[in-house]
């Protein structure tokens, strides 16, 4: 477990929880990035404003970190553009079909003890683990 970073993980996780709680306490909304993103780009959407601003905050966070001397890591992405595009399409379509992702189901939904969100989270975790097992251990190096 050479890469395990429990302290920064706990602090970061607590901040994610704090953001979810504050969004409900202040604006009465679920902090699900799938719903926020879709509600921003959908042509027939209402309530675009707060969603655009939430997403701006999401992007501003790592940018502001550079002011404190952090460097924004260049994300380690798959070499194949085809993999990136297929991955993006599946994430976009799948999260809309199931109505939530790691934040909406995984954090906000499980915190409400919703059986629907617990099921969704178990399924997408399992599916992702199978894919990583295949790409890293069966087909990969």
């Amino acid at each position, binding site marked *: 477990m050479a890469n395990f970073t429990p302290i920064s993980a706990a602090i970061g*996780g607590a901040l994610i929880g704090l953001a979810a709680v504050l969004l409900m306490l202040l604006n009465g909304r679920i902090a699900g990035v799938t719903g926020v993103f879709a509600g921003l780009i959908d042509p027939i959407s209402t309530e675009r404003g707060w969603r655009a601003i939430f997403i701006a905050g999401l992007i501003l966070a790592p940018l502001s970190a550079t002011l404190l001397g952090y460097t924004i890591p260049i994300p380690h992405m798959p070499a194949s553009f085809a993999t990136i595009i297929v991955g*993006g399409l599946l994430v976009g379509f799948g999260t809309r079909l199931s109505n939530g992702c790691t934040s909406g189901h995984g954090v906000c939904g499980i915190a409400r003890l919703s059986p629907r969100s617990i099921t969704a989270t178990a399924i997408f975790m399992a599916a992702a683990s199978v894919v990583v097992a295949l790409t890293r251990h069966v087909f990969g190096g």
Partner: protein
Amino acid sequence: MRALASLLCGFIFGWGLFLSGMIRPDKVLNFLDVLAIPSGGWDPSLAVVMAAALIVTFIGYRFAQPHKPVFAASNQWPTQTAIDRPLIVGSVLFGIGWGLVGLCPGPAIANLASLSTPVIIFVVAMAVGTLAHDVGYTRSSAQTAPTLAQAKTADG
């Protein structure tokens, strides 16, 4: 004030992703790589992130439940409870995409800060996938409830 609250929440959320390392796809994939457990290469950090986020959210939501939100008329708690085919199929598709790249929607968007071309391509593809679903959904359910607007408030 409502806008400022949204900005603050997005900002805190983004810092959480950044500090926890969940903004890094390789770190997420190292968690999903359960076959690396025997060799010691597994990174359980994501489980700690989830646990910490869940503890805070669970307690905070208990407090939020009976209160009216400060800047809105009412709390929009999700109303869907069905464990149905779309939930299951959607979760499988999302999981496959997540496992291929290591990015889910939050970190994908936060990573736009790096101006990395592969991330921009991923987010554009994610937007296309989102719209492909929503346009199809609107067409197929034009005569039947629930409306997209109602569905959108569900879950997240």
